[in-house]
């Protein structure tokens, strides 16, 4: 199916039906509504108004609901599913909740209030704990904390840096004959804690000396009584606050039963917001309105029929114009669909190009399998993801991912069986015959050079197919001459180069290489000449043409390095099977005794678990990379704008009619 054809839809209807028509379009979810273009001749009749105030109001409500949801989530004690999935709700129940929306919004506001209360109490505890830490440093202080002055004496508390020498300060004070006494009440690694008694007349000279030595005055304003009394008071305060927190948390736990309703109301308001935003894109007149949007060609007739039957509307559908930015929707068969998210992570194909997914899918899956290349791992992977795919209720994206994993698992089994690797060499180890050969084709561990040759060969096929897709793109865009210049000549050129280097590839069939090799130079020259003459054709002056031609020849080097890049197929595959074999042999060292068997099972599970996790991740990213860099580079025209139909973009629920 590839990229779905789009048509531009213009719908004219009565103003009174506008809201209902939009709601219905949302339920159908097949139209990507765009900002309506009001032509100059009708600009007096139609206008667009975006109700900013309404949207801001809705945003406020959504914010309250979202905060309430995030507060309640940790207190929701129901069991959560492994895969996040939106809850199904039937239309009747949904409407029931929507009718109560004002009450539910009030509850959400209350929850936000409770959350503030919780935060205040928590920060109160923090403050008190800090105060206790400070007071603990002063635990030896004998006087009440509020003591500051008596009739002639000034009392201050303060800290000196640990480096300050109290004895020398005392000496200095003595030398100046000041009535000032220092009392050390404690010290730790950072500071000494002092109480200073001074006569009021000597205050400023004494303070000068002390400040010079780094005294930081500590004020206990607000405290009364001894240090112990205050610590006790604070501790009592903390236990009261902790009790309060427990009470609040109990309340939140109880309130968490509203979570489902709050989520439903959140989605209700987000649907309303979506409608409000879209209404701003619709052109409205006094009696009628019109809207514009994209519709996938297969839906066109059905939609037109339904709308004209229900309401007084006019529906115009036309083919897209050349200069319009047409949204892209890809649709493929069972296998092609599975990798569409991998392509989309790179970029969506442009509307004018062909969809690479159906062609890329087998390569992605087979390369994945080749790099994991163990039938045991593939079996586990295919089974686990197959179970999720067929039996667990998951969102569409996750479902596609599981399908991809299942297919990749099957591909892994395929290669694993060809190479005779079932959990590494598990069967030979158990049978006690390490030379046993289970492979249906050959064992890459024993013949790495042969495998290297095949890896490079798979790479050549991949790249040639990529060039083929470039031809498909050009044909779709009706540039037939470019197919000859930009695709066929590359084929000729690359093929010549391959023939030329064939005898240098390790593990190759020398007879074949020797037959093909002599033709290499000639083919290379023909291809080179074709490229040299055609690649500069887009530049205007003669120098541009020549440089363009040379630059194209330089691409040969890139082609060669692209091919070498496929050697990772061998490297990652070998890494998996060698580590798997090490795990088996390590596990089997205990022999066939009770302890030996237990050790074997432990080593087997942990070792193969780690090996599988690391190498499947490696296979996934490297297989993606081969598509992105080596394959897409040859033909891909990205930058497609995704098709975003106007529909219920809900976060928590799925409404079933």
């Amino acid at each position: 199916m590839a990229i779905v054809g789009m048509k531009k839809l213009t719908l004219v209807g009565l103003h009174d039906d506008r809201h209902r028509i939009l709601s219905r379009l949302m339920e159908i979810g097949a139209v990507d509504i765009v900002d309506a273009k009001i032509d100059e001749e009708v600009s007096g009749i139609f206008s667009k108004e975006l109700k900013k105030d309404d949207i801001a109001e809705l945003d406020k409500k959504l914010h309250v609901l979202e905060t309430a949801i995030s507060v309640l989530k940790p207190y929701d004690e129901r069991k959560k599913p492994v895969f996040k999935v939106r809850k199904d709700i039937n239309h009747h129940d949904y409407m029931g909740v929507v009718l109560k929306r004002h009450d539910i919004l009030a509850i959400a506001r209350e929850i936000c209030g409770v959350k503030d209360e919780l935060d205040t109490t928590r920060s109160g505890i923090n403050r008190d704990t800090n105060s206790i830490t400070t007071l603990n440093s002063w635990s030896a202080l004998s006087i009440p904390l509020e003591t500051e002055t008596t009739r002639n004496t000034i009392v201050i508390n303060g800290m000196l840096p640990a480096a300050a020498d109290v004895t020398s300060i005392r000496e200095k004070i003595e030398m100046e004959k000041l009535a000032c006494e220092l009392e050390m009440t404690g010290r730790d690694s950072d500071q000494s804690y002092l109480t200073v008694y001074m006569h009021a007349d000597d205050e400023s000279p004494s303070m000068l000396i002390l400040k010079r030595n780094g005294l930081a005055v500590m004020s206990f304003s607000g405290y009364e009584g001894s240090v112990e009394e205050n610590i006790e008071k604070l501790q009592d305060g903390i236990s009261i606050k902790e009790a309060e927190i427990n009470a609040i948390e109990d309340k939140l736990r109880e309130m968490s039963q509203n979570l489902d309703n709050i989520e439903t109301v959140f989605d209700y308001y987000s649907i309303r917001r979506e409608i409000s935003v879209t209404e701003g894109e619709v052109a409205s007149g006094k009696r009628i309105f019109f809207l514009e949007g994209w519709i996938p060609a297969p839906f066109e007739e059905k939609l037109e029929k339904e709308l004209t039957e229900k309401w007084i509307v006019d529906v115009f559908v036309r083919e897209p114009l050349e200069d319009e930015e047409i949204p892209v929707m890809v649709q493929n068969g069972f296998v092609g669909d599975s990798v569409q998210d991998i392509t989309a992570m790179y970029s969506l194909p442009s509307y004018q190009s062909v969809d690479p997914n159906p062609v890329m899918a087998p390569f992605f899956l087979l390369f994945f399998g080749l790099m994991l290349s163990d039938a045991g791992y593939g079996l586990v992977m295919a089974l686990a993801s197959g179970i999720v795919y067929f039996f667990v209720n998951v969102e569409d994206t996750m479902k596609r991912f599981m399908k991809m994993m299942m297919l990749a698992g099957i591909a892994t089994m395929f290669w694993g069986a060809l190479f005779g690797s079932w959990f590494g060499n598990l069967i030979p180890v158990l049978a006690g015959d390490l030379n046993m050969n289970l492979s249906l084709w050959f064992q890459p561990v024993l013949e790495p050079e042969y495998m290297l040759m095949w890896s490079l060969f798979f790479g050549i096929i991949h790249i040639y197919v990529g060039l083929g897709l470039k031809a498909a793109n050009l044909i779709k865009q009706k540039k037939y001459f470019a197919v000859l210049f930009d695709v066929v000549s590359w084929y000729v050129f690359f093929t010549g180069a391959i023939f030329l280097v064939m005898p240098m590839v390790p593990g190759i069939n020398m007879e074949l290489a020797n037959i093909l090799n002599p033709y290499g130079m000639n083919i290379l020259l023909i291809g080179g000449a074709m490229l040299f003459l055609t690649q500069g054709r887009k530049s205007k002056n003669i120098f541009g043409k020549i440089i363009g031609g040379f630059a194209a020849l330089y691409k040969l080097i890139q082609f060669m390095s692209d091919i070498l890049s496929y050697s990772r197929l061998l490297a990652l595959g070998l890494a998996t099977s060698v580590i798997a074999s090490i795990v088996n042999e390590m596990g089997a060292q205990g022999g066939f005794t009770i302890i030996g068997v237990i050790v074997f099972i432990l080593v087997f599970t942990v070792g193969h678990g780690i090996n599988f996790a690391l190498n499947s991740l490696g296979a996934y990213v490297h297989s993606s990379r081969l598509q992105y860099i080596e394959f897409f580079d040859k033909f891909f025209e990205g930058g497609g704008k995704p098709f975003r139909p106007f529909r219920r973009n809900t976060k928590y629920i799925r409404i079933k009619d």
Partner: protein
Amino acid sequence: MFDGNFFAILGAALAFLLAGAGSAKGVSIAGEAASGVVAEDSDKFVSVMILEALPSTQGIYGFVIAFMIMAAMGDPGTVISTAKGLTLLIAGLPIGIVGLFSGVYQGRVGAASIGIIAKRSSDLVKGIILTLMVELFAIFALLISILMIGRV
């Protein structure tokens, strides 16, 4: 004492020591950046974990080569010739040395790519591609080491 076995074991040790150290350093560089991102937004855990794991492959490659060198020495008890031992030692060096450097540098690119995730989590693929660019050289080193062992 400096018989063939000694050199071969030295080669296996170097292959793993250097490549493993490179991976450890690389993963730790990326891991520090990853922890910073997770501290801000724990939803990005999976994305940054993938990037953090990428420089761990050098260690795996070193492990594979160390094992293949030991396998090439034949059954335990056999003493291989000094020439063969030295050749195996040399065959272990590509993955060892390239693994050390590429591991560290890949970790640095990984950490920078984790910076991309911190700003835009949708750009994971771009980060992976950038980080994998360094990987290619470790793969080549692994291949060269494998092919060299095959020639012994």
